[in-house]
């Protein structure tokens, strides 16, 4: 299978990239690692007239410490994220979830920012970004703006990125205090997409759960927070029973789809089970 012909641009800076995107017109596609884009182009589900390849934009790659936040360049590959010492220290949940993305070869090319901008509801990283209250730094023709993860994901494969805009980096607030994290993913075979997955970060204090943040993968057209469970856990005893009780409301307010992999009610069941497991592990129980 061969993609339809396109014009190719390979900028080396964010400014050049913005210019290339502007010149590409309406039918331009921005390529990060290409691990989602090239497959759909090969199937001709996408046939952009111009592809702007961000692969040589060095300023968009790498992880840096910015005081109370970690800043991850959008073009940092999954493999780089997994082995990054700053990520391991301050945002372990991201590394843990990224290890489950696709396979070794795909993680060599695929990028953190590309996975977020693609906004696949079955993708693992959007729910993690949401659970960690990450912020997306977006560059456009009129300068930069910062969008909280809670506003970034709008619909199936759709974000607040406007035409002409590029996601350049992601700010991840460091977790302060005694946090535990866990990403629980349920899929059918190796390298398959999540049927449902749950990202949990839990802060314990004096035998209680002081705060819980829970992101849900594939429980609707966008990643979601399990708000009812979070509320039930805040201040709850750090005990298996309390976690199990709170996890029963994990699917509240979600709208999972029914497809070849699972019916909606099965996904609701999975969300409860995986939330219980993820929170239990994150709380060290």
């Amino acid at each position: 299978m061969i993609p339809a012909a396109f014009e190719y641009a390979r900028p080396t800076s964010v400014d050049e990239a913005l210019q290339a995107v502007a010149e590409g017109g309406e039918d331009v596609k921005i390529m990060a690692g290409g691990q989602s884009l090239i497959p759909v182009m090969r199937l001709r589900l996408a046939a952009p007239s111009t592809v702007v390849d961000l692969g040589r934009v060095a300023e968009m790659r790498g992880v840096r410490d910015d005081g109370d936040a970690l800043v991850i360049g959008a073009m940092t590959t999954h493999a780089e994220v997994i082995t990054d010492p700053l990520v391991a220290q301050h945002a372990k949940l991201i590394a843990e979830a990224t290890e489950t993305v696709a396979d070794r070869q795909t993680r060599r090319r695929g990028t953190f920012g590309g996975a977020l901008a693609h906004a696949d509801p079955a993708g693992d990283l959007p729910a993690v970004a949401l659970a960690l209250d990450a912020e997306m730094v977006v560059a456009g023709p009129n300068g930069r703006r910062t969008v909280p993860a809670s506003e970034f994901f709008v619909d199936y494969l759709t974000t607040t990125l406007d035409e002409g805009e590029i996601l350049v980096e992601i700010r991840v607030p460091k977790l302060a205090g005694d946090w535990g994290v866990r990403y629980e993913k349920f899929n059918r075979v190796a390298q398959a997409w999540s049927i449902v997955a749950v990202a949990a970060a839990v802060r314990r204090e004096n035998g209680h759960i002081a705060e819980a943040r829970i992101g849900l993968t594939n429980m609707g057209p966008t990643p979601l927070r399990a708000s009812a469970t979070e509320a039930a856990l805040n201040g709850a005893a750090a005990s298996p029973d309390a976690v199990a009780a709170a996890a029963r409301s994990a699917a509240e307010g979600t709208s999972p789809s029914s497809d070849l992999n699972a019916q909606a009610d099965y996904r609701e069941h999975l969300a409860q089970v995986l939330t219980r497991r993820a929170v239990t592990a994150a709380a060290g129980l």
Partner: protein
Amino acid sequence: MTQVSMRVDGVSYTDEVEPRTLLVHHLREALGKVGTVVGCDTSNCGACTVHLDGQAVKSCTVFAVQADGAEVTTIEGIGSQGDLHPVQKAFHEMHGLQCGFCTPGMIMASIDLLKENPNPSETEVREGIEGNLCRCTGYQNIVRAVQQAAGEMSGSSDTLGAQA
């Protein structure tokens, strides 16, 4: 057309390609590197795995223009008749193949895994090559081959010989 230069298996090539040309097609059709095969054409099977600047990638999911300036290693560049790479040798000795179609990709992915983890457990081998599908062997002998190669490459082949 766009000009691309890359070193493939130690030889430099400069060619004009259409931007839509996939790396695997460029390798096979322009450079004659037919040891790298196209399996599924949907990024699943890993048969087309090559090393791009030392890292295993699926060459059906990379455009040739993205490899401009890069060092590419294919299955044809890791050993020769009579002087096989330890992973090639182990696949041969442990019968890590039947029809052989997945083998080039299996070997390239395994070399990448062993570079990162020179002594993987059985589970780590299975997870490390999860991006490569084999429809013949049931993976048993492939896993054994990777572990034997690991032993040989880290110089502890005696231990593995004793296990076998």
